[in-house]
C-alpha cells in the first residue's frame, strides 16, 4: 500500500470528499461516544452525576471512588477474578486442543483423516441445542463447576478451520525436510509449524479469550450458586437487569449508583480494550488468509 494515491483513484471533488469526511467522523463518534460517556460517568463525583440526571459527558472533577468501592472486595471483585481465571484457563486449553486437532487435520496422509475431518465439519450443520447441551453438561456432572463455562466451548469449528487452513499454507518442503532429518511430528509442530503461525495463534487466542470473557448466559443455567458468577452475569443482573448494585454490596454512599454501574461496565470492557491494539495488527495477516480459504 503506497502512501500516495494512484492517479486513477482521482480526486472525487470537494463535495464528495467533504461528505466522506463527515460520514467517517459520524461513524467514529457513534462508536466512541457511548464508551466515552460511560467512562466519564464512572469517573464523575456523585453530586455532578445526580444533578445532571444520571450521566456526565465531561466530568469537572475526577473521582475514583466508584472503582475503589467495587474493587474493595465483594461481588464484583470476585466476579472479575472468576472471569479472569476462566478466560486464562479456557483460552490455554482451547488453543492447545485447537492447534493439536488442526495440525492433524492439516497433514495430508493421516490414517482415517478424511472421516475425522467430516466428523468435525459436520457439526457446522447442527449447533448443539440449548436443552440437549444442558442435558450433556448435566450428565457430565459439570453443574456448579467452572468447567461448565469452558469444556462445552472448548473448540470453535470456525477457529479450527481457520487454523487448519493456515497450517496447510505452510510450504510442504519445510515440513518434509524436517521429517527427513528424523524429526517426529511433535518436533515438526513445535519447531517448524508453530513459529511460523504466531499471527494466527494470536488472533485465534484473542477470539477464544474474548468469548470466554464475555460468556454470561451459561452461568445462569449451570450455576445454582451466584457467588460463582462471572462478570458478565453480574453485570446483567445489576446493570441491564435493573437490580440495585448498592443493595447488593452494602452502603456505597460516597458514590452515585450510576457511577458504580458505569464503573462495572468499564471494568468489564477494559481487558478487551487493553489487549485489542496489540493484536489488531495481526488481523489482516492471520485471519484473512485463513478465513477466505475456509
Amino acid at each position, binding site marked *: *500500500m503506497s502512501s500516495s494515491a494512484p492517479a486513477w483513484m482521482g480526486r472525487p471533488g470537494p463535495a464528495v470528499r467533504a461528505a466522506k469526511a463527515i460520514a467517517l467522523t459520524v461513524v467514529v463518534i457513534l462508536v466512541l461516544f457511548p464508551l466515552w460517556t460511560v467512562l466519564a460517568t464512572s469517573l464523575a463525583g456523585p453530586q455532578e452525576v445526580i444533578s445532571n440526571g444520571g450521566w456526565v459527558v465531561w466530568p469537572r472533577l475526577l473521582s475514583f471512588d466508584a472503582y475503589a468501592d467495587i474493587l474493595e472486595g465483594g461481588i464484583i471483585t470476585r466476579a472479575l477474578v472468576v472471569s479472569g481465571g476462566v478466560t486464562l484457563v479456557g483460552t490455554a486449553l482451547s488453543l492447545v486442543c485447537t492447534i493439536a486437532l488442526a495440525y492433524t487435520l492439516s497433514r495430508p496422509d493421516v*490414517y482415517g483423516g478424511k472421516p475425522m475431518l467430516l466428523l468435525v465439519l459436520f457439526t457446522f450443520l447442527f449447533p448443539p441445542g440449548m*436443552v440437549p447441551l444442558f442435558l450433556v453438561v448435566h450428565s457430565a456432572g459439570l453443574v456448579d463447576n467452572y468447567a461448565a463455562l469452558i*469444556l462445552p466451548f472448548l473448540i470453535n469449528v470456525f477457529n479450527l478451520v481457520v487454523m487448519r487452513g493456515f497450517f496447510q499454507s505452510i510450504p510442504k518442503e519445510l515440513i518434509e525436510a524436517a521429517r527427513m532429518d528424523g524429526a517426529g511430528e511433535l518436533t515438526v509442530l513445535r519447531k517448524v509449524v508453530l513459529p511460523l503461525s504466531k499471527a494466527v495463534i494470536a488472533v485465534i487466542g484473542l477470539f477464544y479469550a474474548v468469548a470466554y470473557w464475555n460468556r454470561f448466559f451459561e452461568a445462569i443455567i449451570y450455576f445454582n450458586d451466584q457467588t460463582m458468577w462471572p462478570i458478565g452475569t453480574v453485570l446483567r443482573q445489576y446493570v441491564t437487569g435493573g437490580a440495585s448494585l448498592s443493595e447488593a454490596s452494602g452502603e456505597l454512599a460516597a458514590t452515585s449508583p450510576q457511577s458504580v454501574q458505569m464503573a462495572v461496565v468499564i471494568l468489564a470492557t477494559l481487558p478487551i480494550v487493553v489487549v485489542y491494539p496489540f493484536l489488531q495488527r495481526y*488481523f489482516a495477516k492471520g485471519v484473512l488468509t485463513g478465513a477466505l480459504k475456509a
Partner: protein
Amino acid sequence: MIMTRARATPDAGTGGSVGTPDAPRPPNRVRERFRASRVLWLLALPGLAYFLFFHYGALFGNVLAFMNYVPFLGISGSEWVGLAHFERMLTDPEFWNAVTNTLVIALLQLVFFFPAPLALALLLHSIVGDTVRKFVQSVVYLPHFLSWVIVLALFQQMLGGAGVVNGWLSDLGASPLAIIGNPDVYGPLVVAQLIWKECGWATIIFLAALSQVDEQQYEAAAIDGASWGRRLWHVTLPAIRPVIVLLLVLRLGEFLSIGFEQFFLQRQSVGPETGEVLETFVYFTGFAGGDFGYAAAVGLFKGVIGIVLIYTANKVAHRLGEQGVYKS
C-alpha cells in the same frame, strides 16, 4: 516418538471411544498405516473427544423432544410421548408468536443489516490515507469484541429513559423519546444494536474482496473519463459481486439464526408478545417453565429447518461456482 506419546494425552477428558479404529481384515497394512499416524491421532484425540461428547452427545440429547422429560427421573425414567410435543406446537399461539417475531427480525436484519457493512467497506476502501483508514478500522472493529451485556448497557445509557439523548432533548425543551422498552420500535432497535456491534467487523470480508479488484480496470475507466460514481457502479460492484452473492446466500442459509443473547437480555423489557423469539421461547419454556421436552422439541424444529436452509444455501453457492462453508 515413543517418549512424546504420553504428553499428548492428559486432557483427553471423558472421551476416548475413538481411540483405535482397529483393523482385523488386512492386518499388516492397516496397522502399519495407523502406526505411522499414531502421534497425529494422539494429538487429535482431545479435540475429537470434545466433538463426540458435546456435539454428537447433544445430538443424541434431542430424544428429549419425544419425551416428557423430568430431570428428577432422568431419561430412562421419563415417559415417551411420541410426536405429542410437535402436535402441540401446531396449535400453540405462543409458539407461533415466537416464529413470527423471529421471521420479522430476521427479515429486518437481512434488509437493513446486510447492506450496511458493504456501504461502510466502500467508504473505508475509498480512504486514501493509510493512517486514517487504519484508525477508523480499529475503531469500527472494536464493538465486535464487546459482549451483548455491555452493548445493551451502552444503549441504555445513550437512549434509555434517563439516557444522554433524552437529557439533551429535555434541555432543548423537547419531549423525551421512548426507545428502550418500547414494543413499537423494538424491531428497528435490535437491528440498530446489531449494526452498531457487528457492522464494522463484517466489513473485513468486503475489504478483502475490494483489495482484489483489478487496478487496471480502474485505470482504464478513469482514462475513459468515468466519474467516481460510475467507476463504483461499473467496476467495483461487478468485481465484488461474487462475494456479495455468496455472503447473501450463506446469510439466507442462517436466516433463523438471529442470535440469542441479545434477545434473551431484552425480552423482559418489551414483554414476550414482542420480544419472544424461537430461542428465548426454548429457554423460557424449558429452563424457566420446566417443560424440557416441549422446549427440546421447539429447539429440534428450529435445528432441522436450519440444516435444510444451510444445506440448500450451500448447494446454491456451489452452483454459483463458489466454495461453500463446509467444502474443505
